[in-house]
């Protein structure tokens, strides 16, 4: 699939996310919009997966550690063929399998339940170590948020992976510079983020998290030949793709009304 086609998918998914948030009256839309390119690049461009065989022991695993962006994961999995996009209509409604944070085994393709931050990297390392013990060559991709790096458990995991010489694991940090109530670089001393991961022994790359070509190239290049785990600091914009949501942290919790949904669709060219 070429980049133009991927960009079309990205726009369709962004539009769907605004609609899902509007219909379900579910928050965290800005967080979901910021990681769409990362997820599309991974699921269409890098992961060794087969939506028809979602439990293949040899498959690559992706963990959305920032579980509050679950709507983005659901939409990506549905459009990638893991389940019918019709299921997205019931997102966050009473009795739906698609809750605001994913539950265990809710739909094919969701590897783990997330929602409490700082768990995904450790879970993924367990998987990566299991792969090594069982002689399998799958890779584990973990998508984290910048605010998530506040959690101590992230740094417990970050210190162990290089000691174990795990090179089949990659962390992608969706660095949109916001967390729930403020700038992620002001609430904690997050910066210099790339150097932090480097200092912990990771092979670290810094890219534009909305550049699909750069994302696909970086994600395909795991293991990257250094023998180290890989960390990708992906610079992103919260609320990406919709002008009146971009870099406005009100959209961490705000829910679009009917007019905002219409304007968002118009901007994305998806009606």
């Amino acid at each position, binding site marked *: 699939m070429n980049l133009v086609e991927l960009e079309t998918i990205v726009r369709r998914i962004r539009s769907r996310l605004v609609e899902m948030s509007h219909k379900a009256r579910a928050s965290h839309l800005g967080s979901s919009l910021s990681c769409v390119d990362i997820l599309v690049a991974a699921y269409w461009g890098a992961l060794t997966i087969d939506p028809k065989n979602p439990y293949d022991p040899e498959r690559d695993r992706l963990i959305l550690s920032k579980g509050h962006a679950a709507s983005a994961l659901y939409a990506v999995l549905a459009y990638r063929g893991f389940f019918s996009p019709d299921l997205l209509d019931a997102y966050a409604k009473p009795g739906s399998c698609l809750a605001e944070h994913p539950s265990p085994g809710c739909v094919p393709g969701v*590897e783990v339940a997330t929602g409490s931050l700082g768990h995904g990297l450790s879970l993924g*390392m367990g*998987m990566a170590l299991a792969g090594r013990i069982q002689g399998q060559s799958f890779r584990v991709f973990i998508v984290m948020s910048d605010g998530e790096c506040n959690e101590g458990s992230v740094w*417990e995991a970050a210190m162990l992976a290089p000691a174990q010489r795990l090179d089949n694991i990659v962390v992608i940090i969706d660095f949109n510079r916001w967390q729930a109530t403020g700038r992620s670089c002001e609430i904690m001393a997050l910066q210099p983020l790339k150097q932090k991961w480097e200092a912990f022994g990771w092979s670290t790359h810094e890219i534009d998290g909305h550049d699909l070509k750069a994302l696909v190239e970086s994600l395909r290049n795991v293991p990257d030949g250094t023998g180290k785990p890989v960390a990708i600091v992906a610079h992103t914009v919260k609320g990406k793709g919709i002008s009146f949501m971009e870099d406005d942290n009100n959209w961490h919790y705000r829910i679009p009304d009917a007019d905002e949904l219409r304007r968002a669709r118009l901007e994305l060219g998806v009606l």
Partner: protein
Amino acid sequence: MRNAFAEELTALASEDERIVLLSGDIGNRMFNDYKSRFLGRFLNCGVAEANMMSMAAGMALCGLRPITYTIASFATIRCLEQIRIDICYHNLPVTIVGVGGGLCYAANGATHHACEDIASLRILPNMTVICPGDAWEVRLALRAAIKHKGPVYIRLGKKGEPVVHEQVPDFAIGKGIIVREGSEVCLFSTGNILPLAIQASEELGKKGISAQVVSLHTVKPIDENLLSEAFSEFSIVVTVEEHSLFGGLGGSVAEWLADHPHQKAGLVRIGTDDKFLHEAGGQDYARLCFGLTPETIAEKTWRAYQASVSSDVT
């Protein structure tokens, strides 16, 4: 108990290649034999219990049977959310082994006491909680845990505990083991305090009271059949544990009793009080501070028994 654990684990690992041992930077020489044979299936996770628990969950999701090992207080409360979400919510076959349950590490201070671990893990859905009473029960509990489909917490003592069972007991998760037969009072003991419960039954014998002793190794799921029998047959049921009076074995039995009122027997709970110990002293001293001695257990039981007999007369 811990040496029995290490030996049994090594034997099990040769039978089941899914077994992986994760250590929280303890048990250095204890696992030498294991490591010499299964180095690829040993991981020192460092002093990072939260990461260890989540990693164990990740391994279990890939078909392995991880066993985590560290000091009971750090293996439970320190990383309770990782256990709750990553292990219990996913209902994964992870065996969490806590060494030094109760007051085994008394000399290290209250930071190392584990008198809230049973309560903390018992409330988690899908979790099974086992507190073996001697080395035999440790071995059998570990074997049962590996076969179990969900998470299990095994609470060990430390080392040098007397072996209670003269022969290999019948062991099943959720089924108490009668250690001494008796007819008037019934002592339910869980975990490493079992030898004291037996001594207490001997003290009671000297006072002319026939005491049954049961190793109720599984606190969750509780052996409801055995509770039902005991509360209908005996005059007094006593719970004995090296754990808080809140939420452990005594708490569990009290909850059962609230749901099954109008029993013949009254309940006496013996455990640690709702306080931290601040002073120095080993396990024997700490037990003395909390009234966890055979004499005190016997005394409290005797008093409750006398009260029940006199109320029967009136």
